[in-house]
């Protein structure tokens, strides 16, 4: 059944596509089952090998696509079939999905290799080597989920991957679940990520329902095939689909307003940040929109909304990045900002540009994160060095945070390789010719300049900030003098870590070649998937290249870098003399603004007071007051049970005996017996019983007389 398609497709490797799911699965199963008996190297090797094989399969798919660019869909098995609802597991092999496969497995493979060495130290620094295996199991699980996401041929299977990667992100953010603030910080960060993403998934679900309501299917081809006539009938419906989908995107790709989980996600080990929270998972949203472009194309309002969300996020996050001191936090906000660029691109219909930036960003941001990881471990090694040197006398190193850039400086000499690759990554991100970032970002700006001047301006400003904070980071980390013993004693990382860095660096340099103006290899490659739609033409009929835009962006970048140099290299150095610990120059000059940025506009605090605390209070009130005290204790116990008990007592005493007593007393007074004597009457008297009988008779008689009238 798998190979029937190959018959139609001629000699291709399409039939191997399912292996992209199989290999990571095998990897994780092997490590899960036998990992206990394997050495660290073996575990890491197996995991990396699995991903590497996946990459090979992806390459084969690419090769096949050269001959059959239309791609194929390989249905595997049915999943949910109820009435009209027919969802299956199936693999979509086309240029778009294969691009993602290549990025995920390629970058993933490098990061796996890097992690073999990185985690070796990490687990020891954190004091639980037994988690080494767990890390790679989770890592392969992530690759599996991500592959499911990108290779899905329908929205629901995509959703499986979508939440699957969310789960892995949760697990890996909380990988050191007993560390972090109060020992629980990391775990809470994981919860935050998962729950925030669930909010987005809620949107995704609504989108899915609406979609099924309109198209009676979740299958990409079936849905896109009907967009034409549905858009005539119910454009509003499609608008809602795209809108709900956007909620999902803001969740997964950390856009406004749901971006808040990503900075906290840095609690995970650095390879995690690189692979999941920079290169691949967070770009899923961009992929989703690109994948759903036929839907977005027919509802321009939704498109512009997407574009605006992306643009604002890009700017917003970039500003925050300026005022962060944690080396990874800076990169985190930079990621959010870059994702903003991509979202803005796909929002403007520049799917190629968006995807292009996705790819290049995957290269250089992974590079940056990994090298930051190398820096951090360098510093930590330095920390231990330092403690060795003067043991007994406790240095400041004890409570020193190895991720805080204020404790670094001058690492250029201590870690040359890391420095150079970091520099390359930073320049690529800043968008300096001819590095990868330049070309991709340039395309986006170009598109923006045509689409909407406001977007263009905002994005350019964002680009400026980007270059600025990267300059700041480079200087704080690598230049100047060591601001702590740890930094002074820092040392270069092992080969196993640096080699992947170098490869990534090369990719970051030449990545732009993918889609050089004039050739547009990548564009044409993608157009096989993003071709057969009328609306997209608007996006494609752009000039290949605009010197003006390119010049402007380059100038902006250079200016920013120069400014950064002035502020941090020149002025910062001088400041450093009188200020210890280190103070950011901007903090001295523009304290209020810096404070706002440093505190991330207090968004977390606002969310906390607006949503989290109210929900906590509300649910507690509901549980303790409403459900327990009122409903359970008061209503059921006090009212129902208690009332019933009272009724019983009442009937048992007053009615059953008392009333009769009453009559007896009354009657007795009739019979001239002293009432005082009768008070002592207890029940249990024959006469009262007789009286009851008599009362009954009287009642019956009176009723009958009434009835016989």
């Amino acid at each position, binding site marked *: 059944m798998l190979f029937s398609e190959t018959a139609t497709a001629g000699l291709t490797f399409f039939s191997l596509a399912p292996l992209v799911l199989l290999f990571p699965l095998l990897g994780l199963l092997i490590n899960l089952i036998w990992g206990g008996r394997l050495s660290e190297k073996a575990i890491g090797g197996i995991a990396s090998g699995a991903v590497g094989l996946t990459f090979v399969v992806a390459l084969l798919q690419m090769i096949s696509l050269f001959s059959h660019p239309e791609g194929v869909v390989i249905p595997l098995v049915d999943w*949910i079939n*109820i*009435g009209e609802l027919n969802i299956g597991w199936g693999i979509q092999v086309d240029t778009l999905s294969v691009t993602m496969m290549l990025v995920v497995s390629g970058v993933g493979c490098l990061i796996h290799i890097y992690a073999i060495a990185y985690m070796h130290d990490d687990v020891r620094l954190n004091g639980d080597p037994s988690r080494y295996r767990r890390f790679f199991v989770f890592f392969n699980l992530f690759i599996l989920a991500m592959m499911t996401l990108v290779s899905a041929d329908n929205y629901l299977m995509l959703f499986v991957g979508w*939440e*699957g990667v969310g789960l892995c992100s949760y697990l890996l953010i909380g990988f050191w*679940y007993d560390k972090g603030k109060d020992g629980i910080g990391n775990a809470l960060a994981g919860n935050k990520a998962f729950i925030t993403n669930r909010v987005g998934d809620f949107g995704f679900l609504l989108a899915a*329902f609406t979609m*099924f*309501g309109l198209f009676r299917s979740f299958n990409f081809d079936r849905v896109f095939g009907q967009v034409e006539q549905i858009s005539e009938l119910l454009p509003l419906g499609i608008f809602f689909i795209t809108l709900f989908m956007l909620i999902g995107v803001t969740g997964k790709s950390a856009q406004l307003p749901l971006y808040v989980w990503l900075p906290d996600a840095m609690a995970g080990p650095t390879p995690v940040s690189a692979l999941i929270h920079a290169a691949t998972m967070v770009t899923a949203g961009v992929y989703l929109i690109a994948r759903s472009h036929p839907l977005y194309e027919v509802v321009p309002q939704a498109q512009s909304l997407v574009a605006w969300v992306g643009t604002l996020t890009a700017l917003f996050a970039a500003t925050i990045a300026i005022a962060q001191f944690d080396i990874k936090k800076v990169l985190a906000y930079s990621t959010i900002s870059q994702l903003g660029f991509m979202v803005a691109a796909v929002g403007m219909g520049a799917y190629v540009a968006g995807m292009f930036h996705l790819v290049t960003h995957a290269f250089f941001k992974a590079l940056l994160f990994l090298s930051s990881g190398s820096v951090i471990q360098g510093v930590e090694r330095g920390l231990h060095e330092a403690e060795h040197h003067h043991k007994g006398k406790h240095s400041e190193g004890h409570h020193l945070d190895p991720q805080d850039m204020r404790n670094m400086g001058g690492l250029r000499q201590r870690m040359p390789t890391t420095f150079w690759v970091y520099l390359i990554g930073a320049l690529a991100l800043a968008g300096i010719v001819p590095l990868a970032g330049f070309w991709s970002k340039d395309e986006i700006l170009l598109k923006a300049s045509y689409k909407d001047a406001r977007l263009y301006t905002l994005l350019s400003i964002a680009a400026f900030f980007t270059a600025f904070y990267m300059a700041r980071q480079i200087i704080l980390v690598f230049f100047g003098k060591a601001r702590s013993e740890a930094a002074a004693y820092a040392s270069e990382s092992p080969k196993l870590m640096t080699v992947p860095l170098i490869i990534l660096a090369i990719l970051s340099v030449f990545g732009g070649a993918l889609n050089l103006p004039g050739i547009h290899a990548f564009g044409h490659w993608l157009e096989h998937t993003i071709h057969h739609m009328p609306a997209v033409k608007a996006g494609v009929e752009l000039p290949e290249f605009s010197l003006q835009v390119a010049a402007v962006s380059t100038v902006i970048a250079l200016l920013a870098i120069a400014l950064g140099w002035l502020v941090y290299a020149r002025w910062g150095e001088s400041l450093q003399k009188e200020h210890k610990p280190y103070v950011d120059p901007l903090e001295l000059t523009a304290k209020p603004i810096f404070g706002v940025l440093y505190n991330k506009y207090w968004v977390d605090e606002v969310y906390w007071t607006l949503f989290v605390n109210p929900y906590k209070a509300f649910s507690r009130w509901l549980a303790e007051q409403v*459900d327990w005290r009122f409903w359970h204790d008061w209503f059921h116990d006090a009212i129902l049970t208690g009332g019933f008990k009272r009724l019983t007592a009442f009937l048992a005493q007053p009615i059953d005996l008392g009333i009769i007593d009453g009559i007896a007393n009354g009657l007795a007074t009739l019979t001239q017996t002293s009432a005082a004597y009768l008070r002592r009457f207890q029940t249990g008297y024959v006469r009262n019983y007789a009286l009851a009988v008599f009362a009954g008779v009287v009642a019956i008689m009176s009723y009958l007389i009434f009835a016989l009238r």
Partner: protein
Amino acid sequence: MDSIFHPLTLVTFLPLVGVVIILFLREEQKEIIRWVALGVSLVTFVVSLVVLAQFQPGNPDLQLVIRRVWIQVAGWDIAYHLGVDGLSILLVLLTTFLTPISILSTWTAIEERVKEFMIFFLLLEVGMVGVFLALDLFLFYIFWEFTLVPMYFLIGIWGGPRRMYAAIKFFLYTMAGSILMLLAILWLGIQGGTFSLPELVAQNNIPANTQLWLFLAFAAAFAIKVPMWPLHSWLPDAHVEAPTAGSVILAGVLLKMGTYGFLRFNLALFPQAAVQLAPIIAVLAVIGILYGAAVSFPQQDVKKLVAYSSVSHLGFVMLGLFALNPQGIQGGILQMINHGISTGALFLVVGMIYERRHTRDMDAFGGLWKIMPIYGALTLIVALSSMGLPGLNGFVGEFTILLGAWEAGQSGGSLGSYFYAGFAAIGVILAAIYMLTMFQKLFLGPVDKEENRTLKDLNWREIVTLVPLIVLIFWIGLYPKPFFSLMAPAVDKLVGNLALSIAALP
């Protein structure tokens, strides 16, 4: 004889054999008693598999029907009338599947009066299976009421400190509903001249407003059992006090008797009333979903948390059933199974830690994953399935239910508004909140309690009790087709009948 060796008779009454054997054993022979109980329940499970083998999935009608006149009262016959169809087969399997697992879970948990415990447990199985198989209203009522007694004792004798309160509350609440159902059953019998469900359904001549009353009378019994908001007050008590195995069966099967009742009787017998009342019930269901999820969140007692989560989950089931379309109902049925598996597993998990630490207060734990890695991993899977992670069983059920509700929200659907599905979907977020919070409080963070450092990880028996459930969690999550295909024809038939009444709506 054939009626005795009829597979349905066997699967229903086989546990009685175990009861008889155990009766002849001495209280001291705990081990033997346990093994006998386990063995008998396993054999019963095997027999239920035989039933499955003889069951034709393609056939929408009742199958393996056995009908013998049982009691003849002047006028009409009460029949020993069993049968199985797509609506019930899975629930029967669930029952016979969960019983041995629960028995296995009591191995070390129950040391007191093992003999009686096992007797009651097997009697309970008889009642539950009977409920799902009975086609004669009278017979159904007998099984229905009969399940009360063993459960009452399970809670009352082996339960926690407030067990008497919980036991009697459980008994009275359930009975309060079922006596109204008894009157309705009698009324049906008098009007239709028979208690046979198929015949009554075939007659289908009950005037609309009468349907309304009868529907409510039946609903009284089922809604309390489910329990639908706001009739859930007995559930936390029963769950918190019940022994682990009791909770597993209570959540896993007994609650399903309520939802099954709605499906089997209310929808089939009173279609018009069902269609009329669908929106109201759906509102209650949605409230239950959100309310249960919100109330679960701040609970300190893990068992209570899980109990309230059941309110939420069964809200989903009810919503699905009263979407009155294939997606909703099939999703609802599957969700019954899912809830039985996931929540059953959750209660097992809670029981395991309770056995070790004799507390269920979440603050007494923390960082357990470090101490008990296997336990942590299995719990995580169960929790994820319970909060509906795609790829695990919970998602398939919830998604189809929500989709069905959404479909029913279209004009011409039974609900007529998208808000039901919309609000219900929020439950998915809330579920993540309370489940993750629970997991984090128990398993994540540092190990800051000394007494937790020495805890032992699961032993082979505990793993064996959990693994079958885990396997099912993945199976249903990844390839639910066999389950759906079992129920599809029957559901389509049911929906077909309902569609007529929906069309008849003003």
